[in-house]
């Protein structure tokens, strides 16, 4: 009431073939506020944002900026109206320099000299404290820095409305705080920020207001004060929270009785330094550490995803050689890769084809899975994992992130692995799916499958893992279990405060 | 004047060239005659293959020659090779150039170095004084011979399918000219005139298209043997007779051995040839067996009629195997 609405979206409708993606959704953004847009995957957040930024054209409704009805037909239109976006998936060009990425495609960029915009880019970068040089190739920067460059680009475009779509999903805590400082700064300058994230804590840390969507419809708009976290979650998934908190009770005493399934000694790859590791049947362990600590590289070495350079590997006590993914798969190991889009889904292929892929590869080229067999596998896993898809023949690329992840999970479950490595299976997916995946991990363990679970959210790992391998600077610096499994201890180990955990034996 | 030029050249050219030039004038009459041949590669066509083989056969060691050869379809490479041959000190330079231009400088140098130049197969745009003689084909005469033969058949009407070679090539221009004149003055009716760019399959398509359209024709004039063969394949598939006792007269060019055999079998009616055999004439000129008052010597062109061709014609004039 006290401030004018900066942006008003009224009764927005968006129809995809066979799906009503947005059903008369309202959204209001005021000047100088940070407004969290919440909802499970498939709730319509991304669609709403893409309508706002002109990526999609709406099938109904109107958009007002500063009280004026505007029509947004293309991202360029949106930009001209002061609406800038930083997407969840990096949409910059990795083979251009940081400076080029910040100025590419902007009206005035043609006339500016290279030196000038490099200088300008460096200024902005240093103002925002982004650890990148303007002349650096963007692809050489870490994902986090790439994300921040994208934000810097948007900020520099004098935007009135800044949309941050999952900006923090690949950032570590320090970087997140840096980003929040930046957001608060922008807010004080009157910029309206739409913040889309799955990290509930982060919503409460910076947001003023929350709008919740579910199944393409508006659930409601709330101030942060009137909506406690638990209620937010239940509004998002449309259920009460009772069942959510009752997970993850481990009896660690029993762990040691189980036999060891996989054991590596001095395993190293082109990307991972030598390390020792073992996992028992039915055990869920985790690898944790900051971004770049080597946790992903280590599990990739286990799977043979990178060039293996040394080490001894035993499966069920028998020495085996695993240098290629197919060898790992034949030994009962499955690996869900960190980057779902790049290393996971085959976007243009159907859900069915994506589900049977790994099993088919194990069967070999001469023993195809018949169509009917494949269909029944697909149906079985679509049902079992509750994959939301129009049909099993839908291209997997058109599914929401969480459902894509479930398809890849289905792919590996179908191979009936004895050891499943899940690298960030819950990144960028909605709360409901997250919980489903966590439950699935625990159920697999109950059935005797060994699972390695990696997540940036320590809390999530504490809930699912009975043992945590902590890495720092590409070395294993500690192994936590039992009563040591708590946030403080993990943080201390990651940070290297406590020396008692240094010796893991 | 000439002497002065030669002296000036000797002053600026490398010493080695002067030495070889002197050496040559000293002892040229005793050893084998050194001949450098610059030609297009034999893979270019059946014609060229026969041409190259002919050169190699005539300028053999047995005939008292030392032969150096260079084959390329690129003019600049040919020019370099010519320069090289001059430097090496050949007595005679025989050239079938890729392009008609750009040869002045090299031929002038040849002249100054005392190397005698013969052109064969193709003319070059240079002053006549720069070469001894040019033994070439008269493509237009080739077409004339063929069309004259066709007129001699005294058909009541001429409905001709004209399949042309690659447009703009010497052979196409020469073989098209005489027939085009007949079309223009109305003595013959052009059913279709298409280029198949020497492609047999394309020729078949062209004839097939005419057959399918239902138009009548009684002559196929294909500008090489391969295209004639393609045309005949189309006739065969559609049950149209051809050759000596057939409904359609088939004419080809090049005189490949296999084509002449078709002629002998009566499946075709006429095959014309642009003779690839210039080596003997040049050899005769070099050795002084023959002399010619004309600088440009037109090679005799052959045309064979299915009714009169003999096996010895096939052996003597047929190209290839």
């Amino acid at each position, binding site marked *: 009431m006290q401030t004018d609405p900066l942006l008003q979206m009224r009764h927005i409708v968006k129809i995809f073939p066979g799906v009503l993606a947005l059903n008369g959704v309202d959204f209001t953004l005021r000047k100088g506020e940070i407004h969290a847009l919440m909802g499970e995957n498939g709730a319509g957040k991304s669609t709403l944002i893409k309508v706002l930024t002109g990526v999609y054209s709406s099938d109904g409704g109107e958009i007002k900026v500063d009280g004026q009805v505007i029509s947004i037909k293309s991202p360029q239109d949106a930009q001209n109206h002061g609406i800038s976006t930083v997407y969840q998936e990096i949409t910059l060009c990795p083979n251009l320099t940081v400076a080029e990425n910040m100025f590419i495609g902007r009206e005035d960029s043609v006339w500016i000299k290279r030196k000038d915009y490099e200088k300008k880019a460096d200024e902005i970068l240093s103002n925002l404290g982004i650890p990148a040089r303007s002349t650096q190739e963007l692809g050489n920067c870490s994902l986090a820095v790439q994300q921040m460059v994208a934000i810097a680009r948007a900020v520099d475009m004098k935007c009135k409305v800044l949309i941050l779509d999952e900006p923090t999903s690949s950032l570590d805590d320090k970087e997140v705080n840096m980003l929040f400082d930046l957001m608060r700064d922008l807010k004080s300058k009157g910029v309206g920020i739409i913040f889309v994230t799955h990290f509930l804590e982060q919503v409460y840390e910076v947001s003023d207001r929350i709008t919740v969507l579910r199944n393409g419809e508006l659930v409601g708009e709330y101030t942060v004060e009137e909506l406690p976290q638990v209620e937010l979650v239940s509004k998002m998934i449309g259920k009460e929270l009772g069942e959510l908190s009752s997970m993850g009770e481990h009896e660690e005493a029993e762990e040691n009785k189980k036999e060891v399934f996989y054991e590596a000694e001095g395993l190293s790859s082109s990307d991972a330094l030598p390390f020792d590791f073992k996992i028992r049947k039915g055990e869920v362990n985790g690898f944790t550490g900051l971004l770049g600590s080597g946790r992903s590289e280590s599990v990739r070495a286990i799977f043979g995803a990178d060039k293996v350079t040394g080490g001894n590997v035993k499966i069920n006590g028998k020495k085996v050689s695993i240098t290629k993914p197919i060898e790992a798969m034949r030994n009962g190991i499955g690996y869900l890769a960190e980057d779902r889009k790049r290393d996971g889904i*085959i976007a243009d292929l159907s859900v069915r084809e994506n589900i049977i892929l790994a099993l088919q590869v194990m069967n070999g080229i001469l023993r*195809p899975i018949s169509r009917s067999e494949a269909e029944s596998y697909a149906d079985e896993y679509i049902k079992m994992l509750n994959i939301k898809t129009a049909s099993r023949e839908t291209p997997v690329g058109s599914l929401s992130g969480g459902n894509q992840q479930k398809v890849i999970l289905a792919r590996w479950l179908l191979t009936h692995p004895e050891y499943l490595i899940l690298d960030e299976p819950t990144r960028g997916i909605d709360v409901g799916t997250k919980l489903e995946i966590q439950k699935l991990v625990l159920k697999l363990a109950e059935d005797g499958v060994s699972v390695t679970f990696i997540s940036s959210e320590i809390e999530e790992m504490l809930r699912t893992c009975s043992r945590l391998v902590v890495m720092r600077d590409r070395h294993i610096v500690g192994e936590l279990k039992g009563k040591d499994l708590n946030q403080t201890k993990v943080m201390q180990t990651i940070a290297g405060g406590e020396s008692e955990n240094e010796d893991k034996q | 004047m000439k002497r002065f030029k030669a002296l000036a050249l000797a002053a600026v050219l490398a010493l080695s060239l002067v030495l070889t030039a002197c050496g040559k004038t000293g002892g040229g009459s005793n050893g084998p005659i050194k001949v450098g041949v610059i030609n297009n590669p034999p893979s270019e066509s059946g014609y060229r293959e026969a041409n190259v083989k002919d050169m190699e056969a005539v300028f053999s060691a047995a005939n008292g020659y030392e032969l150096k050869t260079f084959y390329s379809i690129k003019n600049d490479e040919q020019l370099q090779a010519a320069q090289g041959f001059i430097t090496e000190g050949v007595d005679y330079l025989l050239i079938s150039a890729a392009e008609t231009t750009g040869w002045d400088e090299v031929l002038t140098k040849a002249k100054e170095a005392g190397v005698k130049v013969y052109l064969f197969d193709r003319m070059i745009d240079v002053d006549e004084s720069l070469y001894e003689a040019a033994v070439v084909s008269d493509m237009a005469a080739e077409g004339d011979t063929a069309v004259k033969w066709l007129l001699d058949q005294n058909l009541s009407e001429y409905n001709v399918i004209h399949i042309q070679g690659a447009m703009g090539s010497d052979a196409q221009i020469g073989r098209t000219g005489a027939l085009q004149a007949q079309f223009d003055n109305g003595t013959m009716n052009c059913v279709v005139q298409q280029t198949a760019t020497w492609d047999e399959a394309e020729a078949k398509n062209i004839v*097939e298209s005419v057959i399918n359209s239902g138009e009548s024709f009684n002559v196929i004039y294909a500008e090489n043997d391969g295209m004639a063969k393609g045309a005949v394949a189309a006739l065969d598939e559609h049950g149209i007779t051809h050759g000596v006792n057939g409904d359609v007269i088939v004419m080809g060019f090049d005189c490949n051995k296999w084509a002449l055999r078709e002629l002998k079998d009566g499946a075709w009616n006429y095959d014309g040839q642009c003779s690839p055999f210039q080596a003997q004439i040049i050899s005769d000129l070099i050795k002084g067996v023959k002399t010619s008052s004309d600088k440009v010597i037109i090679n005799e062109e052959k045309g064979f009629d299915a009714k009169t061709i003999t096996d010895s014609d096939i052996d003597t004039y047929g190209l290839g195997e």
Partner: protein
Amino acid sequence: MKTNSKKLFAGGLGQLTIPLIAIALLVIFNLIRDPSFFSINLSQNNDGNIVLAGNLISIINGASELAILAMGMTLVTAACGGQDISVGAAAAIAGDVFIKVIKAGSVINAGIVILAFLSACLVAMIFGAFNGILVAVFRIQPMIATLILYTCGRSIAYWINGGATPNVKSSILSGIGSFIPGIPIPTPVLIVALMAIIFKLLFRFTSLELLTQSVGINESAAKLNGINTTFIKILSFVILGVCVCVAGIIGTSRLGLINHETLLLDVEMDAILAVAIGGNSLGGGKFKISGSIIGAYVIQMLTTTLYAMKVSSTDVKAYKAIVIILLVVIGSPVVKKKFDKLVRQRISLKKNDSKGAAQA
């Protein structure tokens, strides 16, 4: 049966829309121009066989080599996201090997023809593997890698026989290249059908289709799913090699003559276009062999139509280029999107109109 037609309309037709519309337009155009264009009649050929004849037969027959090459090209395109431009030259090599082996024997019988076919096939597959290794192992762009064979292939073909146009007369060869006595359909057409069936069976009894598409769409993910991407890529080139050999032998057998300079000249561009017209992405990934085959017939029908209109064959290429540009542009994602938008706007406009009318 029912599910099949459903499938065709659900996923299949989308990709095949453009080539099918193109064929339909060409058919309509020809029917207006000359209603007898598509008449087919039986006639006796010079070997005494009763055979089918007419423009339609010429089109289907004439497109045979192109259709077969397009099949293999589709696979390479799908796996490698690039095209093989050496198919014409490689076909000349295969044809020359075929003729060489046949001429080596004193008599020409079925045995020697089969031996010749197998030899030509082997050679074409080796050249295919050569291209495949350059692409898959050395990671050279397919067009650049195959440029090597494109440039030198016809010279290699020349060396094999050492003569410009070796010639073979044999009833077996004319059986391959034109008609088998007693069968009125041109043999090349039957060979195309056979190849299509072989591909169908290949996809039915191996998982090649899935694996190839996976490699083409997302190589990194394919690798992490245990697929030997190098093998799949090389295999696609080797399979194309077989297609090249078959096309080369058809081309050679049509006339019983091989001219290494002109056999299937410039066919590589037509083959690539057939793949594109068939709605397949030239960037690799999902593919439909049937689309490419239809694409080949579109190109041939266009050529035959232009010949029938007595367009000079030098101009045919230019006209073909114009039509093909139109087809490819219409089939491009940009135009498709625009078209979809237009349709939807029309629909919503109509809705608004009816609303307005109701209010009034």
